[in-house]
């Protein structure tokens, strides 16, 4: 059997908050989470606020390290490989694209930043790469000279997407990125993501609560509650027969929202 692209094995994360001088409390944000992710597949993570889904995203993106457990990419443990390679393979799209862009730098510079950081390329090659990536996400070459405030919200999201994709990552992590988008914009971006997934074979991990989008995009859904995975099944099964109590409540509420009051 082929090894999955990303394997997460029993990772857990514990926060230590000091309370006063001597006491401290420990909060287990994630308790022994494991899953596999194949190439060109999409995994959606849903759960209540405080269920540890954002912590999971940050651990995967390398923003912090898990208290225990392993993350394997191509069967290789990520804790052993150098940080630089890891930063190029798994990239996160922030929650609010407009807040994560520097208003005083041209868009082109910001998209290039990871490339400058992680790869040594000649300036002309870099420029080529920049334009190719911008075309892929549906931006024009002229946009490279713009400042973020001159772009619309969906274009800013495309900029952050281009910035993540310029180093050819294998996995993209979306931390509730698309939930604040308008419906037509979201539809455009869903199309864009589907297209990119088919052409580049990237895997996506989407964190959020936009159920109609998850239903359309995701192959598998992972439901988290209080740091534990309570359900992990294909999307259709989850939407047809939710097993756990929390998922049932969520799916019934969703069905009622889009189908009207049951009375």
């Amino acid at each position, binding site marked *: 059997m082929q090894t999955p692209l990303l394997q997460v094995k029993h990772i857990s994360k514990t926060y230590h908050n000091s309370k006063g001088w001597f006491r401290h409390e420990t909060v287990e944000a994630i308790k022994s989470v494991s899953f596999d992710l194949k190439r060109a597949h999409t995994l959606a993570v849903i759960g*209540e*606020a405080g269920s540890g889904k954002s912590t999971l995203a940050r651990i995967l993106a390398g923003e912090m390290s898990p208290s225990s457990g392993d993350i394997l990419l191509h069967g290789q443990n990520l804790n052993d490989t150098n940080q630089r390679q890891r930063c190029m393979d798994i990239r996160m799209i922030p929650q609010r694209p407009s807040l994560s862009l520097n208003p005083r730098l041209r868009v082109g510079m910001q998209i290039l930043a990871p490339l400058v950081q992680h790869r040594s390329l000649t300036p002309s090659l870099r420029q080529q790469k920049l334009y190719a990536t911008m075309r892929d996400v549906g931006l024009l070459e002229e946009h490279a000279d713009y400042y973020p405030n001159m772009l*619309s*919200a*969906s*274009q800013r999201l495309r900029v952050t997407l281009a910035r993540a994709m310029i180093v050819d990552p294998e996995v993209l992590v979306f931390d509730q990125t698309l*939930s*604040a988008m*308008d*419906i*037509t*914009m979201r*539809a*455009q971006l*869903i*199309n864009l993501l*589907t*297209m990119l997934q088919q052409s580049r074979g990237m895997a996506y991990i989407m964190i959020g*609560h936009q*159920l*109609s989008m998850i239903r*359309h*995009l995701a192959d598998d859904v992972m439901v988290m509650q209080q740091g534990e995975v309570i359900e992990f099944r294909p999307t*259709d099964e989850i939407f047809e027969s939710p097993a756990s109590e929390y998922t049932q*409540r*969520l799916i019934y*509420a*969703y069905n*009622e*929202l*889009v*189908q*009207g*009051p049951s009375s």
Partner: protein
Amino acid sequence: MNLLDIRNLTIELETPQGIITAVERFSLVVQDGEFRGIVGESGSGKSLVGRAIMGLLSNKWRVRADRFFFAGEDLQQMDVDEHRRFMGREAAMIFQQPSSYLDPIAKIGEQILEALPQTPRLNLAFWRRNSDRLEKVSALLHKVGIRDHKRIMASYPHELSEGLCQKIMIAMAIANEPRLLIADEPTSTMEATTKIQIYKLMAKMNQLRKLSVVHICNELETAANWTDRVTIMYCGQSVEAGPTQQVVEQPLHPYTHALATLIKRDPQRQMLNVMPGTMPTLQHLPTGCRLGPRCPRAHKDCIEMPRSRYLRNRSYRCHAPFNLEEKHANAAASGQTH
């Protein structure tokens, strides 16, 4: 009876670069006890309409209308303070991100007390008036579905979830027994289970107390099932209005058509049928029909701004509508136009 009657509302903003028209010739009629939806993308001017009705726009905005009546009173005859005081008595508004609209340093109970009508009940002895007001607060909380009113009243906004905060906002909104509730994207940041609670609450208020609701939201998907009539806005104009069921099932305007096809279910993971491009900014509007450059059905007539046409109880603003037979189109074109 028409509770709210707006005809050709225009909202303009004075900027150093000149006057920008944010909302142009917007008409809205809300009946008593109606659940009305206004759907549009961000920047389409839908929140401005809500704020203009409440009189909340600052004086750099210019609001004009051919008719601007609420419950038979002409709002344009009033000055700003009168307008606000009148609408404060008769209507209420709730916003998105409720926790940011609540005072972070006052307890919930105090804040709801503030929202209660100030007139004392004269038939009550003065030493009992205070406890009477507190009882009213807990009754309000019960009405919006909060059971442990004691804990909620003693807590601060940051200790509560967004869903609870929105319920508290609704409790404060209905404290004055308003006739109209304007809900400006009340559920946009919530998850499905909380969303449904807020929707059910609004629907309940609408049915039990004949409270009219103007629900401003950016998703047709949910508005489709919870509203009686809906107005679709694009770029500051109302592009289509009518009974929700008809608008969703047989959209006339190409923009509505695009929105309606997005919410149809297709289990296969395929490309969605979307409109290319983004909404133009208000400084750089295209000439003629504002959807023009993005519209799949654009033709040479579209360089002229289409007028609102009325067809039975619907209105639309398009030269080449969908789902309309030729004779109806001609009848509508020769009929009443504005």
